[in-house]
């Protein structure tokens, strides 16, 4: 299975023009799974991640693993290309771990800050792992150029609450809400596991 290359996801006019399936390389999936396993040092959640670089042929790989900093709730990527790595930062990958004190919740999708970061840094691809589930956003020309970080951070957390009040579980609420957020920001949204993610917005 050939993995998705940069030219398949860059400069898309609309989310409907995004590939139906994002295909990840085996090497990237191994790296993502390894970072997921490393997301519970000493039994405590700690986000892990890295930067997605494209090489001159459009192949997407993970570099700058560990980023600049991370803690149980955040990951600060290092977008600067390094010698021997890809030539251009096109996105990020990070994990959303919840440990025993957080009920080992998995399947939690993106946050508003994840979206604001991607938009404001001009990134094309945002990948996330939470347990076995993978999530992705792909930017299009309908996406805004800038978003107010703090407001976006707040808005999308608050907007999950009505789902919870209807009895929907927290992870499911996060996933449902991110579909709505994708529509709001002209993003294509994907969910999946292993090497393939399926576009769920637009379906």
């Amino acid at each position, binding site marked *: 299975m050939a993995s998705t290359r940069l030219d398949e996801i860059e400069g898309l006019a609309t989310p409907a023009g995004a590939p139906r399936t994002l295909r990840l390389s085996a090497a990237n999936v191994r790296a993502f799974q390894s970072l997921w396993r490393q997301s519970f040092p000493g039994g405590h959640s700690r*986000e892990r*991640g890295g930067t997605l670089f494209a090489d001159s042929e459009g192949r997407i790989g993970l570099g700058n693993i560990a980023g*600049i*900093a991370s*803690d*149980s*709730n*955040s*990951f*600060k*990527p290092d977008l600067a290309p390094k010698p021997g790595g890809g030539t251009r930062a096109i996105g*990020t990958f*990070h994990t*959303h771990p*919840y440990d025993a*004190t*957080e*009920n080992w*919740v998995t399947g*939690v999708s993106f*946050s*508003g*800050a*994840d979206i*604001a*970061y991607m938009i*404001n840094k001009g990134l094309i691809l945002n990948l996330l792992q939470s347990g076995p589930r993978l999530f992705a956003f792909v930017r299009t020309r309908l996406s805004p150029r800038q978003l*107010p*970080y*703090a*407001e976006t*951070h*707040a808005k*999308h*957390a*608050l907007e*999950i*609450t009505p789902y*919870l009040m209807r009895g929907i579980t*927290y992870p499911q609420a*996060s996933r449902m809400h991110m579909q709505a957020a994708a529509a709001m920001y002209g993003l294509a949204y994907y969910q999946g596991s292993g090497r393939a993610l399926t576009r769920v917005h637009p379906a």
Partner: protein
Amino acid sequence: MRLPASTRPSRLAWLAVLVGAGVSASILPPPGRSCRLVVPAVTAARTAAANALKRGDYPAAIRQLDHGLRTIGDRYIDQDAMDDSAMKLVFAQDEQRKGRLQRAAVIKQRVLAARAAMCGIG
């Protein structure tokens, strides 16, 4: 155990706890104010919360943690980070609503510790 009504945050207060910024200017500190200004209050809230947790008084711990989160406001925000702490607070709030006060308090404690660290408060 459900949190007594008197300790449930109002919607506005909860917005302030959640993220601090851009939510309700009337109850939030102006952006860009130094973290240094809130060190004593945040440190006191964290200490009081830790003591309340130790004695199993989760409603008191939550009150202190919510106060600490409101006090730190948006000072912690780093636009170069992918910050999921507001999501964790929504999760904590949902646990609190369901009466799982210990879990809610522990999650809020960790979020406040992380925000304090991002603000340079040890």
